[in-house]
């Protein structure tokens, strides 16, 4: 039988990357010395799943590597090894190596052999290092060879409690005991306490349990082998019997695990707490599943599948049900309609409208994922960078559960990394510097996300030195971006860092300072229809505030008319719409038409000129309407004929079949089935600035 395993690969990789994220965040949360058992368990399970999966799919290098990690984790889990900072660090690095290996396996390449080998031996070193750090019992893998010789047990104490159904599985306790007897002299003690009264006695059930003693120092694996077939159907433990004089403290029950039997180890309960193995395994799996759902998915950019909370799907199905009911109600009404029933028809239509809207919202919900998918990588980043930069930095995150569109998650990742790196590198000072400035030694970087209006606001706030206003200005003058005597506000100056190739870092580090980035960050955020702002107080810290639309598929728009053409202006860009008076207008030589709005001089963009619309109604500026819009921190007034109304529009791509059009961000379909184009405000301003297609005079846009 041949099954094409490749069809499962994607799921395997997806789950493995999720597993890696679980391991990584778990390891980061672990404090040396005081490890939470649950935490270790979660990490262990993730490692175990990866090992199992990679073995199944034939990625032997991955499974071998994971196996060593797993061994280490297993020791921590059983409390046989202290959770040392050193080990955590090695495990973290191993997670990275593993990620590389999995990526290579997925893309059909090969991982960096040398690095894998180095990390492998590093893990081995930590494993072998146990005696210095703890005094508990040995690692199961090496027990037979390395540890046992030190204190040879003189025999074994075996507790064997078959479950009632053992004999129905075709096994016979007697055969097992006989088999055991072949290893050496045994003494058998049978426990009859479970034996029921005769009338309740089920002849096919097993009620007996045994305490067995093997007076022979055989290898433990030999015993395990005998019980191999029944280990799922019994409670079973093997304890070495130590020679007299041996320190009893060390004679803890050794693990039942052999090196290939981690799943067994997981299932096999200790004698003291004996939940039925099946049940325990099931809960483990369930927990695993729950954890997976909670934890961030692979940060890999373009994964094409999405995990959806079952509740969201249920809500959707519910909604569709309602819709079907409404539809059949309307259908019945239509079959023999009489004018007297118009009231019911109207009711039905209202219901239909409500359900359609709810359905739309639910469908949108499916694309929404918590921003923690994007935030989850930062603890690691901060952990690594702060040690690299010799700074003490604490990361505080809030609002990780804020939900955003999946596309936003995919595109916001890199800009965020860039901004957080900047905060760490440029913002937070070195500990000495902070102390000198009267600040606590540890710098704080806050990463938060929240809903505000129809937007998602992401803030990266640090309590560092703030942006160096003068340095930025000096640099900008040097580069000829601005003139020294230009009267610039702080905001204008901070905005300069978004210029391509702008960096004030005195020294280019591998962390930041190459000046490739802030412009890209801004571009990415603009592409998502968002905006970015900077706040900074010298000596107190700075904040970067990113505003993003909740969803990329739908936008609140204002419909405008110019001549016979209809366009949509995103409502978020609109500051206000005004009808202007002659007195507000002025023509600045060389700068085109401007108007005054609350002491600000704003340029007028005559839409019909920029877009070449011939039959526009309003010839004079005072006849039409000026829609004051803002984009990339600049404002201007769009001169249009009329405002038509506000509505939610579904964004359709113009580029899919056509190409990018300057000044247009997309298209939508109006209620009558016709297409309307959506304006891209920053693009439109650029277009007007360049002189557009037929603008009379080039417009210089004021800030």
């Amino acid at each position: 039988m041949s099954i094409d395993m490749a069809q499962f690969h994607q799921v395997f990789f997806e789950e493995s990357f999720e597993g890696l994220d679980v391991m990584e965040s778990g390891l980061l949360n672990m404090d040396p010395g005081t490890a939470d058992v649950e935490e270790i368990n979660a990490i262990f399970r993730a490692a175990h799943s990866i090992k199992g999966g990679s073995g199944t799919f034939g990625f032997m290098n991955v499974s071998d590597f994971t196996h060593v990690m797993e061994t280490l984790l297993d020791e921590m889990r059983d409390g046989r090894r202290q959770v040392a900072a050193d080990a955590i660090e090695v495990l973290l690095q191993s997670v990275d190596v593993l990620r590389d290996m999995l990526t290579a396996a997925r893309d059909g390449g090969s991982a960096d052999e040398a690095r894998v080998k180095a990390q492998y031996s590093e893990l081995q070193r930590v494993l072998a290092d146990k005696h210095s750090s703890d005094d508990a019992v040995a690692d199961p893998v090496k027990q037979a060879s390395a540890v046992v010789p030190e204190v040879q047990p003189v025999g074994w104490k075996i507790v064997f409690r078959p479950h009632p159904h053992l004999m129905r599985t075709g096994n016979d306790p007697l055969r097992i005991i006989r088999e055991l007897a072949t290893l050496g002299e045994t003494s058998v003690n049978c426990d009859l306490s479970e034996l029921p009264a005769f009338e309740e006695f089920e002849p096919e059930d097993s009620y007996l349990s045994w305490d067995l003693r093997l007076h022979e120092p055989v290898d433990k694996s030999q015993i395990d082998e005998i019980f191999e077939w029944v280990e799922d159907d019994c409670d079973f433990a093997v304890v070495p019997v130590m020679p007299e004089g041996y320190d009893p403290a060390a004679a803890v029950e050794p693990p039942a695990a052999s090196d290939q039997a981690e799943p067994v180890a997981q299932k096999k309960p200790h004698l003291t707490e004996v939940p039925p193995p099946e049940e325990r395994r099931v809960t483990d799996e369930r927990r695993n599943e729950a954890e997976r759902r909670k934890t961030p998915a692979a940060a890999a950019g373009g994964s094409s599948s999405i995990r959806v909370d079952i509740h969201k799907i249920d809500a959707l199905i519910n909604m569709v049900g309602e819709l079907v009911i409404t539809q059949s109600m309307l259908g019945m009404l239509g079959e023999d309609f009489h004018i007297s029933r118009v009231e019911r028809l109207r009711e039905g239509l209202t219901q239909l409208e409500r359900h359609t809207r709810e359905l739309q919202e639910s469908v949108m919900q499916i694309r929404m994922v918590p921003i923690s998918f994007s935030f989850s990588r930062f603890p690691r980043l901060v952990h690594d960078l702060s040690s690299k930069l010799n700074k003490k930095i604490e990361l505080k995150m809030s609002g990780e559960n804020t939900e955003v569109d999946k596309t936003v998650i995919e595109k916001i990742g890199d800009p965020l990394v860039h901004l957080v790196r900047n905060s760490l590198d440029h913002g937070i000072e070195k500990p000495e510097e902070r102390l000198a400035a009267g600040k606590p030694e540890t710098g704080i970087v806050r990463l938060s996300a929240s809903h505000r209006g129809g937007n998602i606001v992401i803030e990266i706030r640090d309590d560092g030195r703030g942006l160096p206003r003068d340095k930025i200005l000096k640099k900008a003058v040097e580069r000829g971006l601005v003139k020294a005597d230009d009267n610039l506000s702080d905001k204008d100056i901070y905005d300069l860092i978004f210029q391509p190739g702008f960096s004030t870092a005195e020294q280019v580090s591998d962390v930041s300072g190459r000046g490739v980035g802030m412009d890209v960050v801004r571009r990415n955020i603009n592409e998502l229809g968002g905006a970015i702002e900077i706040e900074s107080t010298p000596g107190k810290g700075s904040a970067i505030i990113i505003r993003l639309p909740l969803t990329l598929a739908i936008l609140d728009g204002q419909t405008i008319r110019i001549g016979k053409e209809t366009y949509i202006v995103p409502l978020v860009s609109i500051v206000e719409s005004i009808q202007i008076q002659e007195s507000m207008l002025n023509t600045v030589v060389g700068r085109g038409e401007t108007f005054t709005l609350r002491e600000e001089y704003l340029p007028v963009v005559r839409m019909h000129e920029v877009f070449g619309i011939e039959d526009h109604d309003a010839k004079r500026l005072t006849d039409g309407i000026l829609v004051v819009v803002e984009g990339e921190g600049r404002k201007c007034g769009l001169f249009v004929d009329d405002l038509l109304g506000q509505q939610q529009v579904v964004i359709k791509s113009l580029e899919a079949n056509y190409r990018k059009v300057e000044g247009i961000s997309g298209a939508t379909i109006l209620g009558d089935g016709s297409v309307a184009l959506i304006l891209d405000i920053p693009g439109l301003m650029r277009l007007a600035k360049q002189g557009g297609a037929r603008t009379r005079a080039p417009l210089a846009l004021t800030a």
Partner: protein
Amino acid sequence: MPESANNVKQILGDDASGTQYLTCLLAGEQYGLNILQVQEIRGWEQVTRIPNSPRYIKGVINLRGTIVPILDLRLRFDLPAEPYSKETVVIVVRAADKKGNERSIGLVVDAVSDVIVARDEQVVCTPEFGANVPTENIIGLVSEGDEMVMLLDIASLLELDADEVGVTGG
């Protein structure tokens, strides 16, 4: 038309080695489009103009939720413009562009005429003659009876990127 009946027979018959082309009329000339790339044929309808686009891009329409640009082949090939009439049709074609992205576009032609079958060896290379149509948009020529059919390269018509087309103002 008996001719087209013949052609249909040819299509349905054993002769599967040829390629089928949808032919259309443009300023008195016959043009052929690979039928596998033809998505549908529609009547002319009002479009939404795209500002600052080339003259031959009439605008975009809503094709069941997708935004599809409409290209006037007459204008594309610098033929004299004709007012649109009832016979004016839009052939929506779909093909992969240079970058391998599947794109749809509507082509405005005077009328749709026929379906022909041509085997590859029947297609002759485009001579460097003073034809109406730039040779880079033509795959080759096929003679159909005493008429000549120019086979259009749809992929080349899909190249609408600004740098290649140039903005000529709307």
